[in-house]
């Protein structure tokens, strides 16, 4: 089986490099491939908590081929427990493992393991300021029956793979976004977004946005959008205007009050795609109200959009068997599907 995988590996490498060469013809610099996995879709499979079966699947949309266990295939060991997210920074990829309390570091082109960042507590999502400095949200104080907090953002030194500073934020911080020298952190077990100055790495201000803010994206008009849920009030999309004293506009989501799902934005950064109440909706960033009709009646565990083609990727599955990455046209028409690994929760496009 190893031999077969190895052969496949070379085949994909070959295919990948051919496509790459074609795609990069117009670039006159170095158009030789940097590795087998320079371009493609990286699917984060969370795995079953406590079972150490998180994985990254690699999908090459042009050939519709999937390498379901990329990390294990390249590194001959399991990735870890409960992969939450992946971040690419230049030639490195960082995978946050919330059940292992660490971030695995791999070469972004070959996916070979190059290091690890320890000393974290339930790391969730990451964002990089540059190739030397990044931030990660952590569920500090998260327990079975009560979130004691505080949540935390750790500052990562990517040159040494260490934590250089920690910043207390609200409870259960999830998504985070860098914009204009500021880091915005959604505190999902509260009603705030913490704003951190990336020069001082201190919380500068805290914005009240309503219950359960979870993910943030930036649109073409430099407005920040927050998807929030809530059990005591209806969820909403919240627009923050960073240049206008962080003025807030709320677009209430129809339906019962529920936790927020996923939020992403298309390549042109003018259409939001989000899940809420087990449905997927799209909304123009210039719309005056949130839509009432979903585009897809499906509850995704992960949601992504290819910035080039605007193809939607849904992660579907349970915690005990292989999940599926299902592709849809932005209109909501299904295209095809690929079997990946357990609980696909996110998609990264390179």
């Amino acid at each position, binding site marked *: 089986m190893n031999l077969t995988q190895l052969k496949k590996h070379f085949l994909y490498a070959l295919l990948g490099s051919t496509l790459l060469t074609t795609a990069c013809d117009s670039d006159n610099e170095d158009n030789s491939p940097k590795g087998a996995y320079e371009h493609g879709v990286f699917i984060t499979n969370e795995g079953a908590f*406590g*079972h*150490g079966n998180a994985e990254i699947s690699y999908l090459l949309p042009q050939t519709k081929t999937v390498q379901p266990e990329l990390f294990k295939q390249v590194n001959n060991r399991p990735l870890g427990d409960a992969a*939450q997210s992946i971040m690419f920074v230049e030639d490195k990829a960082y995978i946050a493992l919330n059940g*292992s309390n660490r971030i*695995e570091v791999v070469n972004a082109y070959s996916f070979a393991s190059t290091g690890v960042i320890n000393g974290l507590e339930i790391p969730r999502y990451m964002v990089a300021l540059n190739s030397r400095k990044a931030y990660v949200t952590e569920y500090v104080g998260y*327990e079975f029956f009560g979130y004691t907090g505080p949540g935390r953002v750790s500052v990562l030194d990517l040159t040494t793979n260490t934590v250089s500073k920690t910043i207390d934020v609200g409870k259960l911080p999830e998504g985070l976004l860098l914009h204009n020298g500021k880091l915005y952190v959604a505190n999902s077990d509260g009603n705030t977004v913490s704003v951190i100055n990336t020069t001082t790495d201190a919380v500068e201000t805290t914005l009240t946005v309503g219950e359960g803010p979870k993910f943030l994206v930036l649109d073409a008009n430099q407005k920040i959008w927050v998807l929030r849920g809530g059990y005591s009030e209806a969820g909403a999309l919240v627009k923050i205007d960073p240049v206008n004293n962080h003025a807030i506009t709320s677009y209430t989501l129809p339906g019962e009050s529920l936790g927020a799902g996923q939020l992403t934005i298309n390549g042109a950064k003018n259409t939001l795609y989000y899940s809420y109440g087990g449905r997927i909706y799209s909304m123009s960033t210039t719309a005056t109200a949130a839509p009432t009709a979903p585009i897809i009646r499906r509850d995704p565990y992960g949601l992504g959009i290819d910035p080039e083609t605007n193809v939607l990727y849904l992660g579907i599955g349970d915690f*005990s068997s*292989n999940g599926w990455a299902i592709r849809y046209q932005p209109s909501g028409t299904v295209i095809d599907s690929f079997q990946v690994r357990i*609980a696909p929760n996110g998609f990264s496009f390179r």
Partner: protein
Amino acid sequence: MTQRAVFFAYILGLASTLLAPETYAQTQLPDTVELRAVTVAGHKYTRYAAGSRTQSIDSLLLSRQPGITLADVLQQRSPLYLKSYGNGMTATVAFRGTTASHTAVLWNGLNIALPTLGLTDFALLPPSAHTQVALQHGPGGALHGSGAVGGTVLLNNPVSFEPRREVQVQQELGSFGHRRSAASGSFSNGRLSLTSSFTRTASDNDFRFRNTTVFGAPRETQQNAAFKQTSFAQDLHYKLSQNQRLTVRGWYVKTHRQIQPSMGSANNHAVQDDENLRLMAEWQGQLAGGTTTVRGAWFKDRLDYAENGTPSLSTVSTYQSQVEHERQLLPHLLLQVGGEAQVFKAEVGGYSGNVDETRFSAYSWLRYTPVDKLQINLNVRQAWVQSFNPPFTPTLGANYTLLATEGNTLTAKANVSRSYRVPTLNDRFWYPSGNPDLKPENGWGYEAGLVHAFQQGKLTGTTEITGYRLKVEDWIQWQTRGAYSEPVNLQNVRGYGMEADYRWNFQAAENVLLSGGLAYAYTISEQKLPNAWAELQDRQLFYVPKHKVAGWAEVRYRNWWLATDATFTSKRYTDNDNNNWLDPYALINASIGKTFAWRTFEAQLQAQVQNLSNTVYQTMAYRAMPPRNFRISLGLKWAQQP
């Protein structure tokens, strides 16, 4: 994402276990200097288990090492696959390719599975030295009630009024901070019989292992895996009259465990405290030409789990009662009828409030022996559970002696049996993901086999071969729905397999006794799952090895003994889709001992090596198991049989 919150309900409740079948007939040797054979009293169920496979487990281990857990006993003396989260950690057993939830565990006739999780942690069962352990392979809803889908483990403390006075103490020390102390006493004057047993076992479990799951594969010391366990058991039997008896039994086990993290996971300093108190009273009398038995029991099971200091608490009180009457209807027809009631009262942190559940069942067991060579059983049971309707479960089985000559007996057996399993309290009431609309699981099993027993001079032995087919419908599995997992009646599982068992005893010379056994199980247990092209394919259930072999041998010479056991377990998949698996492994243990005797006083010295070949293995993915390790023990016994 909310995976963590349901993890506890989930991982223990459903991410279950497995185990292949097998057992032991018996080389029953007393642990005394004379090589005298002891016969084990027939289990009450064996009268009604024609056509099925019921075997006793060698009681030697328990009498040599009181306080070792049932997990250790089954590991060393049974070919069942034991899935363990680490040495001393949660350990579960399953029969015939089913899971831990499909294994009923009965203590003196009463089901002791934790109603919240619906399964029994075998690391929490340190039976006293006088406990007899038997296994029944295959479904047995009519005999054993809910949960006897794959098989049943029977623990019994038999009644004996044989006059005796006996005191025994033992101390054992071993690698990684292992220590075990045991003390027991037994008394009977023919009318009153008392047995007390105390044990305490602890280990630091700080062994070294290579962590192949992390960057650089460093050698590490196992963290957060220490445990200590104390148990106390008391039996009291009193003859009220020549034909009436009263029995009271108590069994208290208190266990404190750090929870060993998996190799790739962070050490979250999890600890689990279990306290299991089981009390029962039994009255038996000869009434109206039959035997009537009345039992009442109260169990209190506390399971407190804490991670990084934050607790999850659960306490369940269980009240059980049984009334049984057995009588010889006709010279060839034996009948037992009975009824039982169970009430569970659960206070569980993960539920939205306290939960009560009541269950009843009525049963009738019939044994018909028209001729000596033929025994036929027809057993039925109907259960009623608050807001559920478990199916009617019949069993029909027969034994037929094909051949009986001097020294050889060949018996054919066959059995058809139905089983059911009521969803656990966690399945139904876990907040917010419990599903009160679940249906009970139900299954059918069909089996047939041959048993050959022989005796030739000083060589005796038995060989048993069984083939079976098994199916379970409405198998409960937890699935994600949005941010939560919830249990649903999802799978249908089908399996088949073969079990072979061979054991022998050879009195080579007046003071040399050789004994040994070999057991093998071939297990296929499958569900249909989509492959990468979305086509349904048969997939072996996770943690079900196709092949499992267990062998053991012992030599006794004068007052010395040398014993060894070895097991081989084939590859086990660790997920439903068969993406990943654990490699096959072989495990060898050995021990040597000597008994010194002076009149009524006896001392026993024993040394053991576990994992002799220093095998690196896992029975549960990424849970490191100890390397080669050593134990030494000294026991003292005073016995007077007036």
